[in-house]
């Protein structure tokens, strides 16, 4: 088997050398083995895994692993490159792989569909890991049209689930993150991602999991571990300590099935945008929105999109600003006006009967009239592409329009999401905008950002956009991101989520007791530390 690897390596290397010239694929970094893992351990693990999943589903030479190395997050020192990939098609194969990983102490990093662009894709927090690629496990196990629930495997994409519902004429909606077509409900929910319908807080509408533990045992959470379980997807809490949270943003097990609730299609759907003209208006918008969200008059997860973020979706930077220094508010305002955008564009939607929507619309219009907000509907905006994008998202529709962001600063495709959380109060906005601009500006990057209100919290979603094909810019982006984490952290604004490049640093913001508690759980549940070491700063 070792000879096999070497032969493949030679063949792969030659092909890469010939084909890679000038293509800017970025797969240049060299992978290193994990601490304490010798070459013969790695070769032994690879050989054993081949027997489980077949030769064609284990990838262990640098060229063959290339598709797993592509990433948008900064990695100037090559610390996040996977060393291999193994791709099971069943839970039994996952169990066997976990046992092999323990035997050879070879760490494995599970991914569902691996398309969390701006959070790390299929790269890893700590070096030397093999990707446990679960995309082949893409069975939709059950859909209950009466309870409006589904049970799916990790490799099911939102597109697959949507296709199933449409083809079977099931009047149920999905709720997607912005990379919906190619991302998965399981992966996004486990990373506590969000979407933009009333079911936008994905972990809130998750119900029941099947988990392969580090010792190979299978745990079913909630009602799933009872005899002939009848309510696995109906009742979240089960009995005793609630366990599902332990398997989100963590490395305590490999989730192989997940239940989720689906929203019944409403009789009427009506999207709106509220435009405001000044940067400082964001404080008033948050003050107006908070009571509407808490009372559920606005039922969906709300996005307040800054004009620069909106422009970056469909424009290239040099169409709007040619300076090397960060784009000014004046230049953003001018381009926003030319494109029928506000400086803040707040997207909300109503769902229900025409009567219900009419009542809520009155309240919403009054709330925004009081703060000079321009409330616009589909009829008002016509074919505005930004409205079209958000109106698609707010009904769980699929598109990838936002990915244009990755080309804002050049073709190199650099993107890292920085997402600190604050309470949903207007007083929390201005200081954050100023701090973000100061840190981004120091490193030469633009403030391309949005705010989101789930319920009582305010997410500040900052897209750090850079050109990854420029090594100096990648290094600057890495430095900038780290300064954002610590600078915001000192003011009480810590991230709800981060990419593989900053997981340890974000974990530091949550204090030593929190970290020690997670470390104790890790030692108890995965004593050989073979599951995704480094995930959320947990080794």
């Amino acid at each position, binding site marked *: 088997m070792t000879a096999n690897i070497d032969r493949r390596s030679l063949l792969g290397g030659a092909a890469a050398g010939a*084909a*890679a010239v000038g*293509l*800017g*694929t970025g*797969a240049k970094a060299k992978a290193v083995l994990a601490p304490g893992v010798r070459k013969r351990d790695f070769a032994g693990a690879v050989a054993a895994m081949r027997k489980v999943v077949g030769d064609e589903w284990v990838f262990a030479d640098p060229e063959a692993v*290339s*598709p*797993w*190395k*592509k990433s948008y997050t900064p990695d100037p020192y090559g610390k996040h490159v996977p060393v291999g*990939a193994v*791709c099971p098609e069943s839970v039994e194969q996952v169990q066997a792989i976990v046992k092999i990983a323990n035997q050879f102490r070879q760490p494995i990093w599970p991914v569902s*569909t691996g398309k969390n*662009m701006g959070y790390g*894709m*299929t790269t890893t927090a700590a070096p030397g890991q093999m990707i446990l*690629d679960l*995309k*082949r496990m*893409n*069975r*939709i*196990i*059950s*859909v209950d049209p009466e309870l409006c629930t589904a049970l799916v495997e990790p*490799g099911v994409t939102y597109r*697959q689930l*949507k*296709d199933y519902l*449409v*083809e079977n004429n099931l009047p149920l909606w999905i709720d997607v993150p912005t990379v919906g*077509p*190619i991302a998965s409900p399981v992966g996004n929910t486990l990373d506590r991602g969000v979407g933009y319908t009333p079911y936008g807080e994905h972990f809130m509408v998750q119900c029941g999991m099947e988990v392969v533990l580090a010792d190979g045992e299978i745990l079913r959470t909630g009602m799933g571990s009872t005899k002939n379980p009848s309510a696995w997807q109906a009742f979240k809490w089960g009995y005793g300590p609630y366990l599902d949270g332990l398997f989100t943003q963590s490395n305590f097990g490999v989730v192989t099935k997940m239940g989720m609730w689906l929203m019944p*299609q409403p*009789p*009427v*759907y*009506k*999207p709106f945008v509220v435009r405001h003209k000044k940067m400082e208006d964001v404080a008033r918008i948050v003050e107006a929105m908070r009571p509407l969200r808490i009372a559920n008059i606005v039922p969906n997860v709300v996005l307040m999109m800054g004009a620069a973020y909106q422009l970056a979706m*469909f424009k*290239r930077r040099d169409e709007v600003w040619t300076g090397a220094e960060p784009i000014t508010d004046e230049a953003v305002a001018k381009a926003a006006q030319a494109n029928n955008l506000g400086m803040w564009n707040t997207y909300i939607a109503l769902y229900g009967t*025409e009567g219900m*929507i009419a009542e809520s619309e009155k309240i919403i219009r009054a709330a925004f009239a009081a703060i000079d907000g321009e409330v616009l*509907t*589909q009829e008002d905006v016509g074919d505005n*592409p930004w409205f079209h994008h958000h*109106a*698609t998202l707010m*009904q769980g529709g*699929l*598109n*990838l*329009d936002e*990915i*244009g962001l990755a*080309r804002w600063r050049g*073709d*190199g*495709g650099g993107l890292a999401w920085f997402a600190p959380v604050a309470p949903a109060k207007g007083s929390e906005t201005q200081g954050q905008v100023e701090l973000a601009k100061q840190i981004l500006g120091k490193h030469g990057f633009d403030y391309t950002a949005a705010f989101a209100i789930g319920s009582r919290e305010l997410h500040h979603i900052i897209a750090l956009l850079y050109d990854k094909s420029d090594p100096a810019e990648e290094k600057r982006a890495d430095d900038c991101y780290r300064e954002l984490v610590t600078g915001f952290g000192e003011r009480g604004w810590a991230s709800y989520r981060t990419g593989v490049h900053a997981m340890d640093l974000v974990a530091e913001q949550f204090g030593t007791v929190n970290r020690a508690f997670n470390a104790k759980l890790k030692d108890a549940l995965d004593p050989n530390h073979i599951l995704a070491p480094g995930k959320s700063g947990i080794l």
Partner: protein
Amino acid sequence: MRRAVFIAAGLALAGTAQAAQKLGEVQAQRSPEQVYAAVCGYCHGKNVGPVIRGRALPASAVEYIVRHGQNAMPAFRPTEVTPAELKALAAWVEKSSADPKEHGQ
């Protein structure tokens, strides 16, 4: 009121001829048209990435770029677009005609 909005979205999806996936079964091999509609076509021809149809792009280059992700494009792994799907897709892209509805940069 805005009933038309989601009816239009439903039609757009129905028009992409998806392979029916049965409960409990993994996704079957998809045709090039299906892969293009479910993956590539969200960016290429939609202003996010360049137009790739009708340009006689060599199939070998298409295969390489899909697996490696040129510039800002993500890489797609053999678990996402299977080797057999990619081979057929690359040949289809090479021979494809331009779609006047597509636009890109």
